[in-house]
């Protein structure tokens, strides 16, 4: 129980899309009408491929490839940002957390929305005014060209890969669970599709895939909300009252350690109160900081700000994105509570401990239940939408990582900004292929591992490395190139090191101690002489399993980095690593001189505020 709870906490604290333990371990599928599933999956994938084919015919220049020539309208771009951002973590992960832990699931979700306010206020317009394709462009507007391009690319690729791999693993797990396709085949499928979208269609196709996915996801969530509220006549208090009085909910809360001593309706109300899941406020604050500050420096989100014609359009894009994300999140809140009421936590948790299948199971329950054609059709549709969600997010991340490699490292740092259009497009395609192959290979190697903590690492690196460099370059006169370089490298390392010594890793000595404690506990129960032979047999089996676990681990076994126990108790390093990132930039900047950065300050401020001289990629 403790291990599974730890895995669940890990999954959530890190913004897990789908922990690798998702779906029943046997790999059997939850659908009985397989043909329906194949047809629905096929239709969704075919429609996105068709669009990629159309888009690929109009991709000519590097500008087309990276930013669709800056020609995307604000509403469409806003929906694409929503598509990029509404990952499986939000749709499947958060609805599952709400279904299992009520209020705590909600506040987890809210952080992903609040994170867009800093993007809108501090980042969107200045970045559009100063940059062209990547965060490296914005930093190089003032700092030394080659140095900043090289280091910003490293952190962008780390963030993109850290965020991408759990998405691919999660996608493969859904496909295996719902359709029954083998894990490795699924990973290659997700990878191949993503490569086709990005390498052939570039930003135009990726944008369309994201728009389609966002519309499907928001539309599907809305349909589920209507179906869930229909029995209550769309009267929200009646629905919530039913949740509080639900025997399913009350029985589930009663089994949680945080609700001991409560009875009856008090258990239902406890479901709407904090502490069932995120019981450390400091952890919550750290997670909130990483989300709120990390999103503003996520390379795939920043990149989308360059696909519109000017700063005003960038601002409007963020507004549309927040509208789409807000509507989807509010629907997810209802979906979570409805799943707790209609499906019940025991069934949700029995199929996946992290609750990731709450939304698909609710869809099945509301449209005829298990085994019915309607239920299976809806389940297959939700699964296809979730799959499209994952492929679209992965495609956006691949494009961002590839553009950092090709545009910042190859064209910027290696060729000092001088490359022909042909060389740039070829570099972009080669980089896409390289990123895709690395992501697929790592995902296959990670089979069976819990890779969820990588999402948290992605956010932490973005918030601790990219954000301080970006914000201080934009808003602090004394920032120097040296400060930015040290800040990015130091912030990235601080976040990685803190995760490596955190409870996110497995500590064999602790696992062994827990197993031995379980053995002792069972021995105590056996001594108390249980009356029933069957129960005694069950206890003996559990004891043997626990003893085997303990025996398999050497007493002095250590974690991956050689520790017996975590050095920090925080799973999310944000609250420590973000101040480190800011401090490094500030201290090094104060100790160094950078005449170029100082000289370009006036230009940067004027361009940041007004957009004079902004690169309008539209003439390509």
């Amino acid at each position, binding site marked *: 129980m403790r291990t599974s709870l730890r895995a669940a906490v890990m999954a959530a604290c890190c913004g897990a899309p789908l922990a690798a333990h998702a779906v029943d371990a046997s790999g059997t599928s939850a659908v009985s009408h397989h043909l329906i599933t194949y047809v629905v999956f096929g239709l969704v994938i075919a429609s996105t491929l068709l669009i990629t084919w159309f888009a690929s015919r109009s991709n000519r220049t590097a500008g087309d490839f990276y930013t669709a020539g800056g020609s995307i309208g604000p509403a469409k771009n806003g929906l694409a940002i929503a598509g990029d951002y509404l990952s499986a973590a939000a749709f499947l992960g958060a609805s599952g957390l709400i279904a299992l832990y009520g209020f705590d699931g909600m506040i987890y979700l809210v952080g992903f929305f609040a994170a867009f306010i800093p993007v*809108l206020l501090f980042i969107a317009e200045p970045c559009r005014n100063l940059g062209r394709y990547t965060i490296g462009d914005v930093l190089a507007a003032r700092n030394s060209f080659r140095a900043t391009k090289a280091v910003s690319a490293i952190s962008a690729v780390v963030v993109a890969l850290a965020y991408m791999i759990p998405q691919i693993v999660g996608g493969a797990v859904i496909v295996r669970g719902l359709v029954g396709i083998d894990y490795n085949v699924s990973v290659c499928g997700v990878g191949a599709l993503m490569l086709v979208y990005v390498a052939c269609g570039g930003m135009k196709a990726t944008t369309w895939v994201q728009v389609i996915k966002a519309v499907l996801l928001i539309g599907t969530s809305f349909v589920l909300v209507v179906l869930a509220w229909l029995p209550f006549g769309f009267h929200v208090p009646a629905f919530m009252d039913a949740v509080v009085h639900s025997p399913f909910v009350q029985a589930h809360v009663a089994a949680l350690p945080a609700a001991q001593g409560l009875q009856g309706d008090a258990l239902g109300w406890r479901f709407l109160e904090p502490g069932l899941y995120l019981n450390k406020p400091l952890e919550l604050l750290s997670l909130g900081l990483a989300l709120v500050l990390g999103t503003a420096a996520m390379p795939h989100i920043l990149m989308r700000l360059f696909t519109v014609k000017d700063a005003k359009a960038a601002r409007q894009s963020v507004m549309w994105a927040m509208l789409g994300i807000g509507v989807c999140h509010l629907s997810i809140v209802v979906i979570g509570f409805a799943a707790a009421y209609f499906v019940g936590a025991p069934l949700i948790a029995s199929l996946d401990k992290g609750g990731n299948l709450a939304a698909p199971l609710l869809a099945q329950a509301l449209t005829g239940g298990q085994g019915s054609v309607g239920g299976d059709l809806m389940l297959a549709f939700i699964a296809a939408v979730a799959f499209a969600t994952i492929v679209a997010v992965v495609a956006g991340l691949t494009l961002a990582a590839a553009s950092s490699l090709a545009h910042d490292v190859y064209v910027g740092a290696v060729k000092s900004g001088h490359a022909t259009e042909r060389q740039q497009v070829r570099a972009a395609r080669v980089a896409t292929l390289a990123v895709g192959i690395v992501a697929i290979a790592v995902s296959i190697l990670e089979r069976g591992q819990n890779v969820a903590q990588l999402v948290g690492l992605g956010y932490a690196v973005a918030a601790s490395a990219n954000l301080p460099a970006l914000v201080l370059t934009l808003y602090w006169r004394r920032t120097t190139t040296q400060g930015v370089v040290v800040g990015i490298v130091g912030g990235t390392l601080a976040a990685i090191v803190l995760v490596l010594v955190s409870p996110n890793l497995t500590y064999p000595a602790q696992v062994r101690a827990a197993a031995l404690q379980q053995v002792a506990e069972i021995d105590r129960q056996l001594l108390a002489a249980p009356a029933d032979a069957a129960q005694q047999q069950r206890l003996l089996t559990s004891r043997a399993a626990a003893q085997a676990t303990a025996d398999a681990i050497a007493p002095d076994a250590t974690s991956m980095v050689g520790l017996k126990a975590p050095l920090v108790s925080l799973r999310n390093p944000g609250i420590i690593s973000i101040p480190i990132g800011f401090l490094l930039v500030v201290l090094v900047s104060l100790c160094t001189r950078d005449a170029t950065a100082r000289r370009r300050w006036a*230009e940067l401020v004027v361009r940041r505020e007004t957009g004079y001289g902004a690169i309008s990629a539209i003439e390509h």
Partner: protein
Amino acid sequence: MAESEIDWEAVLASERFRQLARRRRNTIVVLGVLAALYYFSIPALIAWAPEVFRIRLAAGINLGTAFAVSQYPFGGLIVYVFMRRTAAIDRAAAGLAERTQGGLAVVEEHHAY
């Protein structure tokens, strides 16, 4: 960088530009602080005054649930105010651009950046 054609220092020093930059800065700072206070009051209240979120408002709805959901309309309000304010600043900036157009020819950058 083709920055030589515009006297950036002169634009930066002009009273009109400084006024516009100050208006924008005030807007984002005030809205940023409000948004941060509203969002981070969730962990703050959970840590220091957990009983506040337990207050029951109606059948099946307590203050915690209402406050968590209210983050969305509050975010919407911040966006609305920001869009209104920045649109006004943009109009004023357009005036500034016209007045100083002589020195502010838009510079295109042709190299690959």
